[in-house]
């Protein structure tokens, strides 16, 4: 074996909440784990967030806790290391990274996560063309910086959220629901109101899916305490006004009349897509499912397993998932992997 090769019992690809949680759980059971993260930092998707729904706990604290846990474990962490291909030979997995190094493992956990939808593909909404049009990710960093301003640098009079950008859209090819945007929008709307109480906040939705514990209560709070206006209709065009605000066209479907209004900020609730890494590795291993996500054996009893021996999945590389679901899924993956290792090693 060359010095460029590392060996471990388990290779975890992806250093987000799923990867870290699973790696720590495995490591705590005495299993040797390597973790690969293509970015120079861990958990960058969560790290970009300000607060988490539904209880407004801090996202950075979550990341810090996870990092702390990881550094306290015996996991060997490889940052800035992107796994570009992998193959299975004689019961072992061989992973090749972007430096050309090979890593060996008995089991592999794919925790490659998601990318956010590129809102420029919905050109009619003007992202990248009008400055007043931002994505939910952009808004998150504004909220994090505690500075919510319109194009002119003033406190916005009006902020409008639009749901389902890049999700539930057959034209873009994403038929699925991204699951977390509804509650995220409600959370962000409340945060906008907290930061700037005099701003009018509108939220355009097609259906509001408040599926988790505390979500419906959050929705009600947004209506009752924060006076956020919910409009059932999809915005189909955005244009700019003479004063650099954004003019939007929608229909209030409950009134049955078209609606044309100006807003300082139009926030596009961009959905989740399979990340580049997910797409690449899932297709490389032949576990590619719908829309480029990785495909698990069955959603009920073997949701962490794949059709390939020793290849496991955790988190949003399978489908859009919230942070809490992701972490739980990672733990269940760790249990599955530990079981697998027992049988694999005894054979």
């Amino acid at each position, binding site marked *: 074996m060359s010095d460029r090769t590392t060996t471990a019992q388990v290779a975890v690809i992806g250093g987000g909440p799923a990867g870290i949680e699973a790696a720590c759980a495995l490591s705590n059971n005495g299993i040797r784990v390597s973790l690969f993260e293509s970015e120079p930092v861990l958990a960058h998707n969560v790290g970009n967030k300000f607060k988490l729904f539904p209880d407004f706990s801090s996202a950075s604290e979550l990341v810090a806790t996870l990092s702390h846990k990881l550094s306290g474990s015996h996991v060997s962490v490889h940052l800035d290391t992107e796994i570009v291909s992998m193959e299975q030979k004689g019961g072992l997995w061989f992973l090749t990274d972007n430096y050309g190094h090979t890593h060996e493992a008995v089991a592999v956990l794919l925790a490659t996560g998601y990318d956010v939808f590129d809102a420029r593909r919905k050109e*009619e909404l003007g992202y990248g063309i009008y400055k007043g049009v931002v994505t939910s990710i952009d808004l998150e960093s504004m909220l994090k910086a505690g500075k919510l301003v319109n194009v002119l640098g003033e406190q916005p009079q009006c902020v409008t959220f639009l749901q*389902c950008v890049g999700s*539930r*859209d*057959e*034209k873009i090819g994403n038929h699925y629901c991204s699951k977390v945007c509804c509650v995220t929008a409600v959370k962000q709307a409340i945060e906008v109101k907290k930061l700037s109480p005099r701003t009018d906040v509108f939220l355009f939705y*097609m*259906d509001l899916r408040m599926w988790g514990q505390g979500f419906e209560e959050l929705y009600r709070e947004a209506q009752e305490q924060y006076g956020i206006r919910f409009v*059932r*209709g*999809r*915005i*189909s*065009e955005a244009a700019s006004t003479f004063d650099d605000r954004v003019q939007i*066209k*929608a*229909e*209030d*479907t409950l009134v*049955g*009349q*078209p*609606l044309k209004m100006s807003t300082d900020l139009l926030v596009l609730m961009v959905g989740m897509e399979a990340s580049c890494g997910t797409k690449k590795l899932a297709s490389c291993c032949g576990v590619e499912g719908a829309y480029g996500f990785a495909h698990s054996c069955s959603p009920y009893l073997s949701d962490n397993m794949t059709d390939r021996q020793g290849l496991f999945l955790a988190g949003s590389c399978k489908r859009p998932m919230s942070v809490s679901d992701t972490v739980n899924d990672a733990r269940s993956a760790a249990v599955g992997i530990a079981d697998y290792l027992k049988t694999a090693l005894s054979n």
Partner: protein
Amino acid sequence: MDFGFTISKPRSIEPTEAGREQLLQLEEQVPTFRRCMNCGGCTATCSAGQFTDFNIRKVHNLYRWGQYKELDEELQKCMLCGKCTLVCPRGVNLRSLIIHLRKALNKDHQPGDYQHFIRNNNR
């Protein structure tokens, strides 16, 4: 003639068998029609709707319930520009829907006079 009162409009929609048949026929012609989830994107973007009160979503929902009154006149406002079809997140073929709706609502409709021409001029 003024009788001092007018005929009241029905307060509620009462679906009929005939309306159901008509709807099924339309759904057969434009299968994507069933997919609509009433997001209103079509109405929001509608070119004609920028000038006048024309709501294609409302029109086809009224058709669903067999409320045909004045729908034909309403549909004539459409310019067939195709923006609605382009923005529809569910891929409803709205232009086809509009043409078929107009055919269904227009009792005198016959295909162009060309058939007649063929009969007279063929071979």
